[in-house]
């Protein structure tokens, strides 16, 4: 594998742009990051070992830039304390039971051969946008990028126990939002 910067924009710009925009939901910022990625890549051309494809290599650089954005966005939002958890206190009674009004109800898409409609996808997107930046960052790094937990904790400066609290709350809120808007 070799690099061909003369061809980068036509070969990878759209891909990198859509990669960034699904993760940041901000067109201007996504554009900036694509540009920064190429420029940073030019500085590192000599480090390219040819073990991965050009696109994979560029995507890795972009990923790091996205994590930087996550980190900046979420730095004002911590710490999430286990004690005064306003976000989950809503779903459960004191003793840990589901509150009657928040108990999970069938979506009708739980079975394997379900057909997820466009409409459901749109609701999912909107619900994801409602998540706080830090939760969204933790959630996507874990479930989309499949990053090791230790990496995410180190990158976003959350403790291991907070990590699971965030993952848990993100899902509870996402699921509740779907239930509210879909059924």
């Amino acid at each position, binding site marked *: 594998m070799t690099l061909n*910067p*003369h061809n*980068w*924009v*036509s070969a990878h*710009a*759209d*891909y990198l*742009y*859509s*990669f960034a*925009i*699904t*993760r940041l939901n901000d067109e201007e910022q996504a*554009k900036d990051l*694509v*540009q920064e990625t*190429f*420029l940073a890549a*030019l500085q590192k051309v000599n480090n390219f070992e040819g073990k991965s494809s050009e696109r994979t290599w560029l995507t890795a650089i972009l990923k790091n830039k996205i994590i930087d954005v996550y980190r900046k966005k979420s730095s004002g939002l911590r710490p999430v304390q286990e004690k005064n958890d306003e976000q*989950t206190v809503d*779903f*459960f009674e004191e*003793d*840990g*039971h*589901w509150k009657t009004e928040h*108990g*999970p*109800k*069938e*979506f009708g*898409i*739980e079975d394997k051969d*379900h057909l*997820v409609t466009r409409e*459901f*996808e749109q609701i*999912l*997107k909107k619900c*994801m946008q409602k998540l706080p930046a830090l939760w969204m960052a933790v*959630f*996507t790094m*874990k*479930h*989309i990028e499949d990053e090791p*937990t230790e990496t995410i904790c180190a990158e976003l400066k959350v403790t291991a126990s907070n990590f*699971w*609290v965030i*993952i*848990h709350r993100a*899902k*509870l809120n*996402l*699921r509740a939002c*779907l239930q509210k808007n879909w059924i």
Partner: protein
Amino acid sequence: MSHLKKIIYNCKQATYLIEKKSAQRLSFRETVELRIHLYGCSFCRLFSKQSAVINNMVKELFNSSAGSGIHLDDDFKKELQQRIEEELNK
């Protein structure tokens, strides 16, 4: 209340373990606790299913949008390639 009783009746803790399980191995004790809870709790069984569906859907959403017709405008691309060429000629 004994520890075991606590988890049997605690949906908050059970859903926490469900999420943890989706990303890493639970300890033996956690596995047993969760299994006992799910045996008796239809709400959390449903939550568990939905949680997995949501994970898959979010993944699909991210992956499909990566290949689907989002484009940068041509002017931006032209300028971008120009900048790259300039850097290369430095």
